[in-house]
């Protein structure tokens, strides 16, 4: 299927945002402390799917206290989070919290113990504001 220019550009931007997110998460968030608190004895693999563009590489592997990749995961991820583009944008611009997205079914989560992963996304997107402050203050 041939993609229209707007879709191609959206895909390019989302991919770029994910790449930047990985850099910011590793640089700005204290993943080590997070891991000690929530996942002391395990590594997690998270996949964030944007509906309609599920084929895009948006997988996170949290291993040894760092985010390793955003490639599509070959193994079944620990947790899969799915949302549409609008929810992704609203979360990234703090118009909506992850709690709201979860409660109002603007996103779905599958997997075991997903509340702890939810915490990770929560920290990434809103609660602690490290990544978001970067977004708001232009890095």
């Amino acid at each position: 299927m041939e993609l229209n220019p707007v879709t191609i550009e959206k895909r390019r931007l989302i991919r770029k945002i994910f790449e930047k997110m990985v850099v910011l998460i590793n640089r700005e968030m204290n993943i080590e402390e997070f891991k000690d608190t929530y996942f002391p004895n395990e590594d997690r693999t998270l996949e964030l799917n944007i509906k309609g563009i599920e084929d895009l590489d948006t997988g996170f592997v949290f291993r040894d206290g760092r985010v390793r990749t955003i490639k599509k995961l070959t193994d079944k991820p620990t947790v899969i989070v799915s949302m549409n583009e609008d929810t992704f944008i609203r979360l990234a611009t703090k118009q909506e919290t992850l709690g709201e997205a979860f409660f109002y079914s603007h996103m779905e989560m599958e997997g075991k113990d997903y509340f702890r992963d939810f915490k990770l996304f929560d920290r990434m997107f809103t609660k602690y504001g490290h990544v978001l402050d970067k977004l708001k203050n232009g890095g």
Partner: protein
Amino acid sequence: MLEPPIVIVGGGPAGATAAENLAKKGKNVLLIERSKSYPYREKPCGGGLGPATIKLFPYTKAMGIHTTKKILMSFGDDSIELDIPIVMVNRNEFDLILMKRASVAGAVLRFESTVVTVDYDNKKVLLGNGEIVPFSFLVGAGGVRCPVARHQNSPKATVPLLVGKADGGALNSSETAEIVFFEGFKGYAWVFPKGKFLDVGVGGDATVKELRKRLGAFLKERKLTMYDKTGWTIPFEPPMDPVSCKMLIDSTSAVCGDAAGFANPATGEGIRYAMQSGKEVAEVLLGTRDYKTYPTFLEDLVRLRDYRERFFAKGLKEYFMELKKTPDLARELAGFFFGDRPAPPSAPMTDDERLKALKAIDEKMGV
């Protein structure tokens, strides 16, 4: 010739709120209540007003007999504490004060009256004493067994609850209200301190026999002796199918409160939705609300119902343990159940808006 009154069946929070709001705008209102005026009936109910009720109806705060500051949700030996205040009320006093407010506003109250049947075509109700009363509009607010609701085939799904009082000693004036969950039970038990006694009960998706057994075991475990024990049924599912939703209001009648199936499907809280629906029905009749917007909270109830199902489908124990590990998330989620958080924006963006937003995010990330 005077227009027949708006007849309201049931003097609980829904009916009394509708009556007060209509009467104070000059409408001719007749409220029919089956209980005696004194002693007024005690409605089997936990009798707790959450923050949303107080926010919507601030005058109810002064009607409390005790206020708790926290909710302790427990499951087995685990618990989660939430900073949510609950204003505790005695339902017989609370309901009677609401009725008095309606009376002061000008509504005519008729106690010890029951509606036997409704003639919708001729707009008349037949009372238990044989009297025929004409109406200009009929409001059914008589709980799940309301005759108007029966005629309109609503609500469909209810669950039983058993409730009573117990003397907890110092616990009677505790600042913590407790909600207790059990494995494999879609419901909960509660212990609500009310100053001079504890309001204790259990409700959920089970038979009355099963509830009795569960309540008995719970009281034994807590070393409590219950008195004034009684039972009732409350709505378990909000009206969701198009036919039920269409039956909520038309040009002749409306149902509100428990009679319409309006109770929080996750917490069982009914007073807030009863009062809100009573107020909104009055607004429709006063011409300040489009009937198509009645009730404004139906989507919220359906969402809470879906959330409840997700909660139990995941497995209570797993869900509870996860929430315990993420207390700030538990607090946020509880806010949706007990508070009054407005829904976030959800209107779809256009492709151009999406593109613009994504470019802005990308630029601001500055990596």
